[in-house]
């Protein structure tokens, strides 16, 4: 099932909450699918100065949200926007195949918050497509090993 690190982040999630005067906000997911994530960021010198999240979802959704905020904190916007779902999963010591889509949600939420900040400041977005909202996105096919 879940790795110890997933369970640790699930039980003690880091950076939970909302930054009230956030510079960027990213919200992804859908309650019909059971997962919703909101990331708020504070930006200084093109770096993520502060980051908080709120997530409705399963153990993996909460753990991936928590770890992605930890990874992104202090990073440049460009580096943070480039974090991949695989890096998130690896950082957690792996995820069960059926849960890989949760890491997509976490990186999507982060990318959307970064782009929200950039667009508000008249700059070009850098996050790229939001994978979890692609109509062809099949959460069970995100990974080659993801045969369910």
């Amino acid at each position, binding site marked *: 099932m879940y790795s110890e690190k997933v*369970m640790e982040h*699930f*039980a003690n*999630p880091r950076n*939970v909450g*909302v930054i009230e005067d956030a510079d960027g906000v990213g*919200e992804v997911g859908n*309650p*019909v*699918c*059971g*997962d*919703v*994530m*909101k990331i708020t960021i504070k930006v200084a010198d093109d770096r993520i100065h502060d980051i908080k999240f*709120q*997530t*409705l*979802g*399963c*153990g*993996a*959704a*909460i753990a991936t949200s928590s770890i992605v905020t930890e990874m992104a904190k202090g990073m440049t916007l460009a580096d943070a926007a480039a974090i991949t779902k695989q890096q998130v999963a690896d950082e957690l010591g792996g995820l069960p195949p*059926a*849960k890989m889509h949760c890491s997509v949600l976490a990186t999507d939420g982060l990318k959307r918050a970064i782009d929200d900040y950039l667009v508000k400041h008249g700059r070009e977005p850098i996050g790229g497509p939001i994978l979890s909202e692609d109509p062809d996105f099949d*959460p*069970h096919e995100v990974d080659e090993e993801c045969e*369910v």
Partner: protein
Amino acid sequence: MKEMEGTTYLDYSATTPVDPRVVEAMVPYLTERFGNPNSLYRLGREAHGALEDARERVARSINAAAASEIVFMGCGTESDNAAIFGIATANGRSSGHVVVSAFEHHAVLEPAHALSKRGFEVTELKPRTDGTVHPEDLEAVMRDDTVLVSVMHGNNEIGTLQPIAELARIAHARGAAFHSDAAQTLGKVDVDVQALGVDAMSFSGHKIYAPKGVGVLYLKRGTPFAPQMLGGGQESRRRSGTQNVAGAVAFARALEIMDEERPTEAPRLASLRDRLVEQVLARIEHARLNAAEAPERLPHIANFVIPGCEGEAMLLHLDAAGFAVATGSACSSGSLKPSHVLLSIGLPPELAHGSLRVSLGRWSAEADVDAFVDALVPIVEKLRAMNPLYEKTIAALTRGA
């Protein structure tokens, strides 16, 4: 129970520990009386005698007309598969109409689905929001070529009881056979196959404090049946394979204990369940009992929706706090859809993701129920505080209600 120290087990509908009295009855058939019941020498005869004694005791408990109507199988799923495939395809039949309720266990739904790929037409009959299949709804989908109807006796997730006798009458009036999966009801309510009027009924050992790996198919004499397991012709050719004698003995003993204790145990469990429902609804804002308006329900199952919380997250936190329960959230199933049972009774997916099933049993006590609710309250608070949509969800819910 000693084995359960450290965990408050509230998932008796998933499985049960084997009762020590059942262990005591079965162990000799694993050790000194290990014979093959099909062997002619003394050891074999001894095993055969125990197997037939078990068969008679099971037959008596469910009021079968003859012991030969009891077929021992490997599990409840095998019993369901055998009934669906065995009755639908009896006498070489390769087409026809089959009706199953939409909230059947997958052990019935999947065989029905397989039949639909082999030339049969399958209707999935929806229960109503009270968690019950209404006889007039079955009546409306019956056809001249309907060969089999399968509706479970009690639902495993929401615990609602179905009007089996009436449903069976409707099936028979149109010449169809009637099967019912009774894995959840055996021992918990009175199961009388003749009063219910079923042609076939499926049971599982590990739901009644017998071990995993033994099931029973009740097959009324004269019901056309194509065996699914072929081989040495055991169980009067209906299920080949050397019988699990110890399992059969355990099944019969477990059922006997259920029957003996039911007059006091069923009301005890019902009052424990009522205490649980009352506390959850009182202490957790916006919590709901699923299929609350069901006319009849099993005494030991309560299924809740906790809006604003996802089921697997609740389950994992509860596990860390020492409680074992189940959820119908998508995440628990490995698919993206929440419980087909909850969806079938009209629950929207966003609520079905937040379901919790608590099922009580022989070693459940008032203190367990109270401690469970004490543990659940802060978990719900924590998860709701983390939910970015909580206010919206509750506003929509309040508007809807």
